[in-house]
């Protein structure tokens, strides 16, 4: 096939293609929207199950134990209440984060709205990351005595010596689990935020 022959075939094909225009407005916007939706969709699913779902489950477990009278001493009851408050707060954070992610929709919103929503999501992401880091220590302080009471039946406030060994084991285990988990979570969110950001980079930069 010589270049001229190639050119002739190409032009005939071009003519055929021009006749076959099939894209609709919806398909075009869907294509532009798909990538941000995919990345955000992963985060919404993860946050719904791992964030909101986990907080709700912990809160329900805590309430059931409260109703069963598991926390009879005042310090333990305070720890249980503070843990509950932290779960409610964490649940709210997850819910708010999910709501902000769901707001980003290139199909339904204007470019300006998408831009504002993504900026709000990014700000929330940075803020909640800080909150997560700073609240991890108080969460451990309040929640570990509750865990020891619920799962091992020991109250560190009434008999510290008897619960000492388990207390250190739980602290050690928490650190062992928390460090890789936090690393994984940060990576997961950074990666997907970046992907979503790339998809609406133009909006973000305006």
């Amino acid at each position, binding site marked *: *096939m010589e*270049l001229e022959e*190639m*050119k002739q*075939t*190409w*032009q*005939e*094909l*071009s003519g*055929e*293609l*021009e006749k*076959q*225009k*099939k*894209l609709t*407005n919806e*398909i*075009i*916007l*869907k*294509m*532009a929207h*798909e*990538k941000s939706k995919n990345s955000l969709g992963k985060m919404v699913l993860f946050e719904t199950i791992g964030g909101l779902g986990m907080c709700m489950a912990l809160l329900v477990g805590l309430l059931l134990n409260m109703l069963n009278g598991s926390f009879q001493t005042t310090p333990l009851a305070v720890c249980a209440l503070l843990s509950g408050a932290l779960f409610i707060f964490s649940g709210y954070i997850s819910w708010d984060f999910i709501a902000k992610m769901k707001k980003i929709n*290139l199909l339904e919103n*204007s*470019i300006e709205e998408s831009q504002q929503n993504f900026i709000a999501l990014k700000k929330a992401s940075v803020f909640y990351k800080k909150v997560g880091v700073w609240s991890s220590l108080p969460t451990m302080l309040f929640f570990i005595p509750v865990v020891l009471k619920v799962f091992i039946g020991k109250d560190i406030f009434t008999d510290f010596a008897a619960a000492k060994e388990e207390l250190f084991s739980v602290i050690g285990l928490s650190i062992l689990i928390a460090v890789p988990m936090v690393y994984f979570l940060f990576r997961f969110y950074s990666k997907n935020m970046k992907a979503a950001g*790339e*998809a*609406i*980079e*133009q909006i973000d930069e*305006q």
Partner: protein
Amino acid sequence: MNTENAFVETIKENEALIYKVTAVYGNDSEDRKDLYQEIVLQLWKAFEKFKNQSQISTWLYRVALNTAISRLRKTKKEGQMVSFDAGLHVLEDSYDPVLEQRSKDLYQHISMLNDIEKAVILLFLEDKSHQEIAQITGLTVSNVGTRMGRIKEKLKKGIAKV
């Protein structure tokens, strides 16, 4: 006209152009659909930046070809592709059998070229001058001429093989 409407109209007017780029750079039907989506996405991202500094077709070719080439390089590096299904059913109907055979031959010949040469031949086939090809690809005019010479050589050798 708001930005979205303007964008949709631009894509509609130039959908054949995007399809041709996907036909040259895509491996199969699924791959072409993925690439089509990627190009539309990149055009959308760049649309507001495009403030008629250049002709719309020049801008479209540039974005589409850059997307196709970067994606191809990324895919080669990663060795995998992500599947896409956004309800895109375009331009897959067969034409008359003779033209279909000729188009297969055409794409087979183009497939012998490297990434940049594919862009150059595509623009040449689109009847672009060396000057325009240089403007779109970022090559110099003399480099375009040199590459066209190499492409002719490659195609001749390819013809012997085919």
